[in-house]
C-alpha cells in the first residue's frame, strides 16, 4: 500500500516536472491559436457574434469565452472548420444568432445621400469613398456585406443588395437525393 502510494506520487511528481519543464522550454510567444481561428473567420467585421470584429471574437473563442457557433457569415462550414481546429463537436447555430444570409454588398442611393460621412466612419474596412457634404459611394469589391453602415445612415439611403450570380461565382448544386426526401 505504502509502496503503491510512493510510486504513484513519484510518477506524479516526475510527470509534473516534465510538464513544467516543457512548458518553459517550448513556450510559444503570442497566441497562434487566435490567428488560426481568425484565419477561419470570414473577416466581415460585422459584429453579429456580439464581439466588435473578427479578431476579438477569435480571441474570445481561444480563451474559451465564446461558442464557435456565433458567426453567421461563416456559415455551417465555418463552424465545422472551427470545430475541427479546436477538437470540438460541431454545434448548429444558436437561436440568438442571426441566420446566414446570401452574400450581399451595400449600395448607397446616390440621390438620397446627404454626405454626412456617418457610414464612412462605420465601415470597418474603409470601403466607402466620399467626403463631408459630398455624395458617398461604396467600393463594391471591398465591401464585406457587414451591414454596419446601414443603421447609422440618417436618411436610410443604404440598402443591402445580394450579389448576383455570375459565371465566376456560379456553383454546382448539391444533388437532391432520394434518401434525403422524407415521405409525407
Amino acid at each position, binding site marked *: 500500500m505504502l509502496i503503491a502510494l510512493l510510486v504513484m506520487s513519484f510518477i506524479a511528481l516526475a510527470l509534473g516536472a516534465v510538464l513544467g519543464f516543457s512548458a518553459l522550454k517550448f513556450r510559444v510567444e503570442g497566441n497562434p491559436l487566435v490567428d488560426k481561428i481568425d484565419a477561419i473567420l470570414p473577416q466581415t467585421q460585422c459584429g453579429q457574434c456580439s464581439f466588435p470584429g473578427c479578431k476579438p471574437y477569435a480571441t474570445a473563442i481561444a480563451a474559451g469565452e465564446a461558442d464557435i457557433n456565433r458567426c453567421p457569415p461563416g456559415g455551417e462550414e465555418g463552424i465545422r472548420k472551427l470545430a475541427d481546429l479546436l477538437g470540438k463537436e460541431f454545434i448548429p447555430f444558436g437561436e440568438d444568432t442571426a441566420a446566414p444570409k446570401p452574400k450581399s454588398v451595400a449600395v448607397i442611393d446616390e440621390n438620397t445621400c446627404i454626405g454626412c460621412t456617418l457610414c464612412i466612419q462605420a465601415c470597418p474596412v474603409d470601403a466607402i469613398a466620399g467626403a463631408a457634404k459630398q455624395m458617398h459611394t461604396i467600393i463594391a469589391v471591398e465591401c464585406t456585406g457587414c451591414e454596419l453602415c446601414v443603421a447609422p445612415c440618417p436618411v436610410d439611403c443604404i440598402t443591402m443588395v445580394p450579389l448576383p450570380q455570375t459565371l465566376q461565382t456560379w456553383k454546382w448544386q448539391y*444533388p437532391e437525393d432520394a434518401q434525403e426526401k*422524407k*415521405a409525407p
Partner: protein
Amino acid sequence: MFPPFTTQASSVREIMFKVLLALLPGIALYVWYFGPAILVSITLASLTALATEAVMLKLRRRPLAPFLSDNSALLTAWLLALSIPPLAPWWLVVVGTMFAISVAKHLYGGLGSNPFNPAMVGYAVLIISFPAYMTHWLAPQGLGQLELNFMQQLGYIFGGHFPAGVTVDAVSMATPLDTLKTQLHSAHSMGDILQMPVYGNLGGKGSEMVALGFVIGGIYLLANRIISWHLPLTFLAALFATAGAFYLFDPAHYAPPLFHWFSGAAMLAAFFILTDPVTSPTTIRGKFIFAAGAGFLTYIIRVFGGFPDGVAFATLLMNMCVPLIDAYTQPKVFGKKGEQ
C-alpha cells in the same frame, strides 16, 4: 438528370438477391442433414425482419417501397437464422432479428450506415442473453437419441413443449466445436475425439456438408463478381495458418486446420458475413488486414474463449476497426505514386 446519362443495369436489390440465392445450396443441405426446422426459423426471421424494417422506416420517415424491396433485411434475417439453433422457441429468432434490424441497422442510420454486421449483432445479443437456448443444436439425422417429426418440432418451437417424456437433451446435442472443447477438458486425446460419431470426414457430421454448400454459394458469388476473393481467401488462410500453427505445436490438443474450416460458421463467415460490404473495409490492403484479423480472432475465441463459436465476435471486433483500417490503408492515386 445528371451525367452519366447511361448506367449499367445493376441494383442493390439484385446484389442482395444473388447473395440470397447463393445461400440456397447450404440451406438445402441443412434441410437434408438436419431436417426442415431451419426453414421455420428462416421464415420466422424473414417475416420479423420485413415487419421491423417497415416499422423502422415509418418511424424514420423514409419511403417504404425502395427499402423494403432491397432484400437487405431478408439477407440479415437468413444469416441470423442460419447462425442460431433451429430448434429453439419462436421468440428467440424473433427477438434476435428485431434487435438486429432495429438497433444494429436502423438506429445507426439504416442501409449502408451500420458499422456492425446486423446479423452478428443479433447473434451476439442472443448468445449473451439466452445462452442456454443457443447451445441446443439439432443432432444430424441418425445421430440423436430420438428424432422428432416436423409436427413435433413445430410444437416445440411454437408451444414450447416436447412430447411427453422427451427432454431437450434427447433431441439435441452440442456442436462439434463444443464437444471438442468439453472432451478435451475431460482429457481425451484429439485422435479419439475425432473418432466420435458426431464428427465426419472434415468437421462435424452433416455440418461439414452444409459448410460445403456455403462454399458452392461462395463460388457462385465470386463468379458473379458480387464479392471479391480478398476477404474469403484471406480469412480462410488466416484461420488455416493460425490453426495449423497450433496443430503443429501440439496435435494432441489442437484440432487440425481443416477441421476449423469446416466446423461452425467459418465458411458462412468467409463468404457471406465478412463480405458484407457495408461493414468491411473498402481498400484492398484493408480487406487483407480485416479478414486476417477476423480469421485469427475466430480461432482464438473458438479455442480459448467461452463461446461455442468465435465467428460472430471476431467479425464484430474487426467491424469496429474498419474506419481505422480504411483511413490507414488509402492507396496512392493516379499521378501520386512517386510521392512518399
